[in-house]
């Protein structure tokens, strides 16, 4: 269900279709996701549409943390490289 939503907004009936679940079970699922702030639902006429709440997933903080860990990994590797050099007197 979440995977389907990650591709774009969908109606509840559309979400339920490929699943071996009753509509009410799907609604229950969605309620949990909505309470968690991951999913937003909106009712237009008789159709309830769901979509992923992008803010909850892709906050600036999350993205910048990824950049930070990229550099941390590089500096770990630098430490390994320098330590390996210690064992090899020719490369000093």
């Amino acid at each position, binding site marked *: *269900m*979440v*995977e389907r939503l*990650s591709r774009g907004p969908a109606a509840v009936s559309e979400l339920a279709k490929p699943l071996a679940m009753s509509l009410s079970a799907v609604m*229950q*699922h969605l309620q*949990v*996701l909505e309470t*968690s702030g*991951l999913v937003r639902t909106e009712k237009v006429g008789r159709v309830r549409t769901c979509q*992923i709440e*992008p*803010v909850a*997933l*892709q*906050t*600036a903080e*999350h*993205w*910048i943390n*990824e*950049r*930070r860990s990229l*550099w*941390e*990994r*590089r*500096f770990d*590797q*630098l*430490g*390994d*490289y*320098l330590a390996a*050099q*210690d064992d090899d007197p020719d490369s*000093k």
Partner: protein
Amino acid sequence: MSKHSVTHATFSIDRVYPASPARVFRAFSDPTAKQRWFGTTEGWETKSYALDFRVGGRETCDSIPPGGGVVIAYDARYQDIVPNERIVLSYEMRMGETRMSVSLATMEFKQEAAGTRLIFTEQGAYLDGFDKVEGREEGSRAILETLAKEFEGELASV
């Protein structure tokens, strides 16, 4: 969803290496040495790496993340070099044709009793990153799947 946005952020990383500033600096200035620790990351495939270490010189690294697909490009220009003391460079990161960020990175090398303290500071302008489909799929799929499993467990026990 496709609105343009920019987020500014600064972060720094502080490390101490049991080696002289000259040795640590050489790991940044020598292309062969730098590629050993910078241009390779486990699970990533490095397509190309080049370093022209001088003020105005360029450094590029193209790599493919685990799982393949898009090329992530690091493209830097050296702005200031003080041997054994300081390196300032500007760099951008691209995902395919999309520019994700433009940053200023400063590396300071300080001699200490234990060796060399490296202080890395990045000041970045992060562009549109949070709305991009690629970013969303790549960054959030794993989180989503984990969460979904948790919720399913929760529901099963209702």
